[in-house]
């Protein structure tokens, strides 16, 4: 159970960081 929580949190946080970076790249690009 503890393993599942740690793995899910790590995956979720990483994906969130990646999508923020992707959003920032996209925002700084012309429409």
């Amino acid at each position, binding site marked *: 159970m503890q393993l599942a929580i740690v793995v899910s949190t790590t995956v979720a946080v*990483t994906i969130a960081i990646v999508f923020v970076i*992707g959003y920032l*790249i996209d925002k700084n690009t012309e429409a």
Partner: protein
Amino acid sequence: MMMGITVPHLHLLLNHIPTVGGAAALLLLLVAFARKSNDLKRIALEATYIVALFTFPSYLSGVGAQQTLLKMPEISQAFVDAHWNAALFTFVLMQLAGSLAWLALWKYRRSSQWPTTTITVVVVLSVLAFAASARTAALGGDIRHPEILAQVAAPGDAAAPADAAAPAGEAAPPVVAGSLTGRGLGRSVMDRNWVWPASEALHFIGLWMILGIILIVNLRLLGFMRAVPYSALHRLLPWAALGLLINVVTGMTFVTATPDQYGENISFLWKIIFLMIAGVDLLYITVFEGPWHVESGQNPPLRVKIAGATAIIGWVGVMYFGRMLPFLGNAF
């Protein structure tokens, strides 16, 4: 072994790419700035990307060579580890420089303006990577140089095997096992039961980010979805690059934790060959004129279609041989 070429052979050949290639790319970058030439800047950034890409087989053939060398009693693990740690550091710097070089090229393709901050960071990283690769090369040379040892060791000198690996005038470096070393990182991955499953989950998420975008973009290059101009789909490429970044980090986690599963694995060799094909193709579809000028309603020319097909085949190859690691190769 393939056609008489062993993994250590391959490493001795490929290790020149980050050292000599990295120096050449850095020199080009500096000349491009001095001459304020946009064409030279583009070529220099392309060279930085290509060198970073081919640092993969250079580094990974070292992982394979290590497996062979450590079976030899006369080879000092301390020297191998010192070289490995320096190589890992160089690899990270090279990949950061290569990723940002790609981003700068992608932005320039879209706006014809250079992102100054990004390029400055690429230059700084390239200088650091050059210094790191020179140090890595020197430490690699220390692993085994019988011609130097022959001149130093007096006839009849009863040196211990471990000492025999030490180069002239140098004592063997201490075995460093801190958390920022290859062996230390590998151990900390294996000691924590969540790192491998989390990396595995992220590796698959990275995979669908790459394949999803690559499929859409390259189907257009093959002539599908003709209403959409290529420049519109080109905007999606950074998402594929981010997926690739996730997979480089997680993939290197696996290799660092269990180098013996990858170093001499035939399926892994093919995975890296397909990765090189896909990586070169990614540069082509990011910056070259052919794909960029595929307008709305246009059927792409043959060379562009070939590039589109190559990308899809390349990434499917990477995925296939990754999945086949335990079946065609010796992993797990």
